[in-house]
């Protein structure tokens, strides 16, 4: 037909994703350090980016990042995992039990295995039976602490150095320090120069006394990103989380990919638990809600690994630095950084037309500045609430930019489409 040839097919216009060139990222990071440096010099809060503070931040951030990665894997396959906290608890127990007897790496392995079992339980209940994901997660969070404390009382009470609620101490995995670089950077850091000392402090924090498990965590984030977005397995796994019935119609075994996802998710949660134990000991209540902070980091990062890692870094920073900095000045100065970030958000949101959101951000920024000027230090209880408040804020202000996997939390039945 001739009429057909006249139909003009307009190619679908894709909104170009704003991906900045590496040089631009470098510029942003440099500008960020410069701002932090200015705030440090102005307020005199050296622990804002001292090497010790950075080390404390890394130690606090790694379990959060692993928990976030755990959530990312399962939610990308459409299984909401509220039970990360419980699986982490199982991980702490496994690491404690094996760790004190056969060394830290055995502890890590058993922690991962215990987490994996938790993930399998979640898979059995949500995928095979088809129970609501959140209910299953809540149940796991009830079961895990009871089970571990029961076993702890039986197995650790009579162990040398153990107790009713704690295992014997466990030795640490290897830690890496770059020998001469660390000292040299330390000298520069002590000078207190603008920018240079800050950069030295941050690099020193990353190259001094760095746990092998922290490196493993970083590798896992990179590898996860690669698998999920660059391999066939990852594509199928994500398709199961976006449109399971479409995936099914193309011959993808949805059950299998969902199971793979929850097993990896459980293992990562177990690893997060093991990270807390290795070098210390198993203690009842050790996870302290980090599983939920990990979930928050994942949402903060819009269900993407690097965004999640940034969230984990931010939350780990507030947690680690406030514990490290006994004077409390660092967190006080941090208020200015939060205010500046919110002002940037306000400007960006205003330019993209979200005037109300911009106004709310500006008001909160003003509140932070007022809080900074009216007080000398922040109460530590409120600093601990920061990760949760920030996540709530992000969800409230930027929810139009957040997009979770489309079939996340929905129950899949074979052939039920």
């Amino acid at each position, binding site marked *: 037909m001739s009429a057909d040839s006249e139909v003009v097919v307009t190619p679908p216009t894709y909104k170009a994703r704003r991906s900045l060139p590496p040089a631009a990222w470098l510029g942003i990071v440099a500008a960020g350090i410069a701002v932090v440096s200015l705030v440090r010099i102005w307020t005199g809060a050296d622990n804002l980016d001292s090497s010790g503070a950075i080390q404390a931040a890394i130690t606090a951030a790694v379990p959060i990042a692993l928990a976030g990665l755990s959530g990312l894997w399962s939610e990308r396959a459409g299984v909401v995992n509220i039970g990360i906290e419980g699986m982490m608890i199982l991980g702490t127990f496994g690491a404690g039990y094996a760790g004190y007897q056969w060394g830290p790496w055995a502890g890590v392995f058993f922690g991962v295995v215990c987490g994996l079992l938790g993930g399998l339980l979640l898979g059995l209940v949500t995928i095979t039976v088809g129970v609501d994901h959140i209910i299953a997660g809540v*149940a796991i969070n009830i079961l895990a602490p009871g089970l571990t404390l029961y076993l702890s009382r039986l197995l650790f009470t009579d162990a040398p150095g153990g107790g009713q609620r704690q295992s014997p101490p466990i030795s640490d995995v290897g830690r890496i320090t770059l020998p001469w670089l660390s000292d040299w950077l330390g000298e520069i850091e002590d000078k207190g120069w603008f920018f240079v000392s800050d950069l030295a402090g941050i690099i020193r924090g990353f190259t001094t006394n760095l746990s092998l498990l922290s490196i493993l965590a970083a590798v896992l984030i990179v590898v996860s990103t690669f698998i999920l977005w660059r391999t066939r397995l990852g594509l199928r796994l994500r398709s199961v989380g976006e449109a399971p019935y479409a995936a099914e119609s193309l011959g993808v075994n949805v059950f299998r990919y969902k199971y793979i996802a929850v097993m990896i998710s459980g293992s990562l949660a177990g690893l997060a638990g093991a990270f807390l134990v290795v070098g210390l000991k198993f203690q009842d209540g050790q996870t302290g809600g980090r599983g939920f902070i990990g979930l928050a980091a994942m949402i903060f990062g819009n269900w993407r690994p690097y965004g999640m890692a940034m969230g984990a870094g931010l939350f780990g920073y507030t947690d680690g630095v406030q514990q490290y900095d006994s004077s409390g000045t660092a967190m006080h100065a941090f208020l200015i950084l939060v205010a500046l970030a919110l002002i940037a958000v306000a400007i960006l949101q205003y330019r993209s037309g979200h005037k109300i959101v911009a106004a709310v951000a500006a008001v909160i920024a003003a509140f932070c500045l007022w809080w900074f000027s009216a007080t000398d230090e922040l109460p530590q209880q409120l600093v601990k609430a920061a990760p*949760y408040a920030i996540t709530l804020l992000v969800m409230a202000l930027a*929810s139009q930019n957040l997009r979770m996997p489309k079939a996340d939390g929905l129950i899949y039945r074979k052939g039920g489409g």
Partner: protein
Amino acid sequence: MTGSRSRRILLGAAAPIGAIIFSLLVTSLLLIVTGHNPFEAFGAMTSAFERIRVVLGAVNQAAVYYLAAVAVAIGFKMNLFNIGVDGQYRLAAMLAAVVAGTSWMSSLPGFLRIAITLIVAMAVGAAWAGIAALLKVTRGVSEVISTIMLNAIATFIVAYLLTPQMLAVLDGNNISTPKITEGGQLPVVSFTGSTTPLYSLVLLSIIVGIIYALVLSRTVFGFSIKATGMSETAAVASGISVNKMIISAMLLSGAVAGLVGMPELLNGSSASYSLNFPTGIGFTGIAIALLGRNHPVGMVFSALLWAGLDSSANALQGVGIPRELVTIMQGIIVLSVVVAYEYVRRYRLVLEAKDVAKALAAPKTGAAATTA
């Protein structure tokens, strides 16, 4: 249709009973593996109830759990998952305790003091839940995530306010809100032979339960809640404003959550909110609402079961078994009951399909018989 009615009750009871039996089996296995005698353990747990003190403690506890379960169930009825009951009741109990402990309250008549305390608690609970409702309605934020965040924030706000610099007083080694003076609490019922009294606020749970049942079954509002829960599109089509329902259900849920701490505050011996105030009841409420299927009477049974298990835990220590065995049982009961409900639901669908097939087949054979 007496046959189908008895079948319904039988199927309804099958799941929870099956779950309890399953949890007994699993924990028996765990006991045997860890070198204990299951009969000894369960025997010790049952014989704990020979003491009236333990029974009364369980009833008091069940009343508290029931309030939490109703708070959760109100949300569940319309597919809202209020995980935030935990934060709501702790913040509410703390602020209500502060108000009840202020000195100007002492000059007021007793009933007014109780009323003010209860109203403050309900208002705080509703307000804290209201944040999640507002975020959901205006910004589409999932109430599951926002209430998890709000729980944690509530924990730290309570910790912040519960310092001598803020609202608390130092009482020996314990930090607590100022004690409620004489007349600000409600009387308790003492029994001979028991150091534990019966809380008068068990009555509050009964009243809340009756109101919950009546609102759900007898009012337009209750109908709208159920309709929205079953099918949001159908609800919208019949003129129900879903946003309005979300806000009101969440506020109600929060208000009931605010009451959870009241039996302990107004009947308890400490008469204040302190570091020892019970935590985690919000999550217990979720479990009890699930076990009782959000049914006003079903939740009474599950609350009693839960509290009974809790009270028998101490007896386990006597025979050398860690008390956490009870927590494990509770965890397994929740997990297996939701699994069992799912299977019962599917089995019911199969039975219904059979009934329909039978009903459709019957006139056909009749017609065939007449023609023949």
